[in-house]
């Protein structure tokens, strides 16, 4: 086959059409990706609105990389809510289905200030953010997340949550059919609790 024959062949036409379609599609997606980009600030505002029901002022707390790892996962970001003096933490819990993770926002309630003794009093709300490999996370019902906000006594006593029923005295919270995702969610909440107790309060909680 000569070069001229190749350029006139059906194979070349097929290749050219496919490449053209891919290029146009790629260009279109690039333009729309730019137009519909969601900034970190917008994401945070959405989360704050869904937790507090109204716009609130939040100040980012600078995290020390050495402290963000907890036995339950990682704390990604922390915010001080100026309006009510509470804290909002974004954390990723490990131990999910297929070793995956779940990332959540946990709005903590506390008393005092860092200067005169900050103490954890409970959880206001837990909001889902994202996950890795948690195919069955859709099975998690809203009541599962609400459960965390109803355990102020356990939290004030220094307790943690677990998706596996055991005798540790921790509070069990598991969604049937999504045990792995439940475990990762509990660990994400525990990460936020652990970080607050050990780092934000300076270990006084």
């Amino acid at each position, binding site marked *: 086959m000569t070069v001229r024959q190749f350029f006139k062949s*059906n194979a070349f*036409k*097929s*290749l050219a*059409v*496919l490449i053209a*379609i*891919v290029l146009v*599609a790629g260009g*279109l*997606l690039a333009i*729309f*990706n730019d137009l*519909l980009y*969601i900034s970190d600030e917008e994401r945070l505002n*959405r989360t704050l609105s869904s937790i507090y029901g109204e716009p609130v002022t939040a100040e980012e707390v600078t995290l020390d990389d050495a402290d963000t790892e907890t036995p339950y996962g990682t704390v990604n970001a922390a915010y001080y809510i100026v309006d009510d003096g509470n804290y909002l933490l974004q954390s990723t819990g490990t131990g999910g289905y297929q070793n995956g993770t779940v990332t959540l926002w946990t709005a903590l309630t506390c008393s005092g200030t860092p200067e005169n003794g900050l103490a954890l009093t409970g959880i206001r709300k837990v909001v*889902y953010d994202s996950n890795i490999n948690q*195919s069955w*996370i*859709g099975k998690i019902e809203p009541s599962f997340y609400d459960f965390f906000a109803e355990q102020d006594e356990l939290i004030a006593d220094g307790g943690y949550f677990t998706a596996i029923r055991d005798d540790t005295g921790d509070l069990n919270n598991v969604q049937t*059919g999504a045990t792995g995702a439940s475990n990762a969610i509990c660990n994400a909440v525990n990460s936020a609790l652990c970080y607050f107790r050990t780092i934000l309060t300076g270990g006084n909680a």
Partner: protein
Amino acid sequence: MNAKKYGKIAYDGLITNNATFKLVLGTCATLGMSTSAVNSFGMGLSVTVVLLLSNVIISLLRKIIPNTVRIPAYIVIIATMVTLLRMVLEKYIPDLYDSMGVFLPLIVVNCVILGRAEAFASKNPVLDSAIDGVATGLGLTFALTIIGIIREFLGSGSFFGMQVMDFRIGFFTNSAGAFFVYGICIALFVLITGQVDKARRAKHARALRVPSHEEPLPAPDETTAEEVK
């Protein structure tokens, strides 16, 4: 003439070839997303938008795309439309975006969309393909919403998120319950459309003064027999 043709395309998409109840296509999304009426409705509308856009584009390009590479080309077009839809939903309807989860990107492999691209859009003009896309999508939306309403009501005692009854039958929120409701809905849909079709055929036959297959042929009349002789 055109109105009649478009009406037939729409009727086929909505009823005669209903993707969910008649062709049993897109079952994965149907079973996975029908736990609540709102999710089902959202999924149905999302598929409708993708169907409309992909059908229009594929119909426009039908004379350019070589036959040998038509399937990869269709997949690229459909995947692009789904990705655009994901971006729009994430930006403007984040709640629906979150609730649809993994089923939103999976629209790419929904066989309803590729099926309509291959069977209709690649052979018909743009307007016909657009009507087919909308009709097929609305037929799927209707079916998904019906299943979602039933499963949500029986499984959670609510209707479009509003609590109306104080009971829950967990079975209907599970996969087995989804199959059960899906099967019952298919049976009812086939029964109803069958009855309607039968009635239409009988009416049509009466209008033509030709006995339908349901009506016994009249007994041969003596005078008629004599005339024949």
